[in-house]
């Protein structure tokens, strides 16, 4: 069975395993399933980074037409991932801190950490430095939805808050309450 990788319309290069029907079935054998889960995790993270997708929901496996269709379904081999399978994948990713349920205390939707909060913190700081916004107070919304597109465009507020928390710990930022929510003042690295 010669499986080959495939490039999606969005320009994403799917791995060859995505063309294998068993890949979409949740395997009872834990070892086999661990292998498949690792590939799935990597696939999800890679695709999320490619498309800059932050949220993955179980609903994405239930209904077609979402952002994730290119990896959750494979029309060429007539296979799709079952919601239950996706749900357990999310569980695994959350457990290995590659994702976090958002909102917390449920398991239907999660923020995919295609960058870890630390990496986001660095990215935020680098962006602030690059755009000359050190020592100014920025609201979370200004960061997540800047007038000029940035690497952080579209970042979910909870993820942003976690990134800022890291900056606060390393004394590179200060959280300030502002009228319309929260604000942050970034400092130059010491």
């Amino acid at each position, binding site marked *: *069975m010669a499986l080959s*990788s495939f490039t999606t319309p969005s320009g*994403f*290069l*799917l*791995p*060859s*395993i*995505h063309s*294998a*029907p*068993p*890949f*979409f*079935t*949740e*395997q*009872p*054998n834990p*070892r*086999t399933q661990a*292998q*498949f889960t690792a*590939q799935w995790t*990597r*696939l999800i993270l*890679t*695709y999320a980074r*490619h498309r800059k997708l932050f949220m993955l929901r179980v609903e994405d496996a239930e209904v077609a037409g979402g952002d994730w269709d290119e990896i959750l*379904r494979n*029309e060429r081999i*007539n*296979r*799709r*991932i*079952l*919601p*239950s*399978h996706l749900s357990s994948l999310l569980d695994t990713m959350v457990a290995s801190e590659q994702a976090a349920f958002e909102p917390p205390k449920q398991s239907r939707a999660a923020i995919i950490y295609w960058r870890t909060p630390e990496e986001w913190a660095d990215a935020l700081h680098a962006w602030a430095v690059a755009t000359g916004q050190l020592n100014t107070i920025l609201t979370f919304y200004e960061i997540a939805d800047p007038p000029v597109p940035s690497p952080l465009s579209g970042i979910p507020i909870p993820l942003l808050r976690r990134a800022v928390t890291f900056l606060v710990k390393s004394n590179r930022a200060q959280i300030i309450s502002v009228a319309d929510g929260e604000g942050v003042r970034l400092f130059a690295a010491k």
Partner: protein
Amino acid sequence: MALRRYTTSIDGTIPAPALVYSDEEVLASQDNVGIYDGLQKAPDHQNGTIHVTSHRLFFVHASRPHALSFAMDLAHIVRTESYSGLFSSSPKVTLILDPDTAYDDITSISASTSTLDIAGNVGVSDQVNFASWTCEVCNHRNPPGLSPTAAKVCALCGVPRSAVPSSSSISSSLPSSSSLPTSVLSTRTATPDIPVKGTTSEITCPACTFLNVPSRTMCEICGTPLPISTAGASAKSAPVSRPVTPSGGGPNANESLIKISFRKGGDKAFYAILRRSLKAQAWEGRRIGAGTPKGGPGSGQGTTMAGGTADTGAPRRLGIGIDAILRNVETSAQNTEDDLNDAFKDLDALMIKAKDLVQLAEELNEKLTTSSSTTTEKFRTDTVPSFVSSAASSTVSAGSSRYEQFTATTLVPSTEPEEATFIRSSLSQLGLQMANAPITADMIKDERRWVEELARELAQVLQGSPNDFGRSRPGKAGPGSGVGIMKRRGIVALDEVWGGWNRARGVSLIPPSTFLQALPHLVTYTSPPIQTRTFKSGLMALHTPPYTHTAFAARLAGYLTIFDGMNTPQVAEEEGVAVGLAAEMVDAVEQDGTICRDDLACAIVGGGAGGAGGAGVDVRWVMNEWEGYQWDGQE
């Protein structure tokens, strides 16, 4: 002689129900019976029907019912014995008769002189009652046809009948029932059912001059009492014509018993009814008060009553009150117990005999087996040397007989001599083929050996006779001839093996626990070795080497590579095993991670509907080719 002294002749052409008294009833009948007079067969009474009524026994001769039938009062019977028969001897009921109640020879006109004095030989006791009479006290007209006892008292007022014309010819030793005869006249004439052959003259009615038949006591027209028929009297008083009684008239044991031989069975039921009838003592029935026979107002006939009557009457008159009921219950319980004891004694005796027989058969069979096994083994070593394995040679004898058990008849190794074959087949047809018999715990004392023997036996059941290997068996190509359960199948679930084994054993079935104990030993006795395998679900199976996990996994990998994925039924078909077993085996391989599943529930179109876990048949198995998968997608 008893026959003559206790019975009275009757006309057997009349159906039994018509012969009985009005208060008597026929309880049972049995044909094909013969009568023994004493210990000897009564030559004239060897084929007839016997009826038992509440009062009497009737014997109706089959071919000459008119001449050779008789009746006997149950009152004569002191005791009864039953004999259930043996081989050609028919079951019999012995009636031991009371010597004191025997008719005197004068009154009992011999049955053998039957036809001539027919009127006379309708026993006195019977005839007494066939007349109607008028009670002196209440003037009630008592109907005829009552039994002697019942006829003794007035049906209305219960006063004993007193006006008995003293009959000259009735002796003093009459039984109680006949102690109240009306007269010879009535005796004679009150039996309208009996055809009178020796009619000498009609009786002229003194009032209307109608010529009445001699049997009437009253004129048929006007009801006037008729004068005594002289003809009847002469018949009565003709003792000269009767055969001479044996001298020394004292009744001995032989004379006072009668046996009824049941040539065609029916004795049990008959005997039970007879006993019940005897117990009921219906002939004592309507007697009033205790002392009636002796102390009644009609003391005039006291002289006619023999002492014996009172003696025999007294102990029988127990059928009154709670005491009698209790006694009846006791008696029947006692009878039941006796019968049971007898039956068990018989059974014990039979078992002892049977044991000898079985032992004999066992020895014989053992001899045959040893001789045949040596020859067969020699034969095999000569012809098929390649086959000889230790297991085969050690189990050859058991194997051959196991073979026979499957084919159920006479099959023995063909090298056995003809005679041995014949003997063996005879034994097996008798169900005495001991080597065939399943091994039971009591045959082997040692627990370990018992289990090992069981394993050996099981091996035969599973793999069939070792004789089947290598050579053809002429004339024995019947279906399933000696083929064991696993002869053609590599893996069989344990439940099937257990069921098959117990079916082959037939008796002394093996409980599952013992079965499991025997399994580990199985590998020693089987070739190729059969092993036990427990699946993850707990299902256990026996399998041959090709069905070990690794061997199967290798084969499965081959199938999956060739066919590019298969579902479980396809695997089962390929392997020739049950789908359930195949599923278990495939699951076991999946546990290894060498294969993985492709659930059709994951199909976008078709297959599983909406991902509801209807998996199972829809699962396709494919090789797991992603063990060390290298990421070839987008970084």
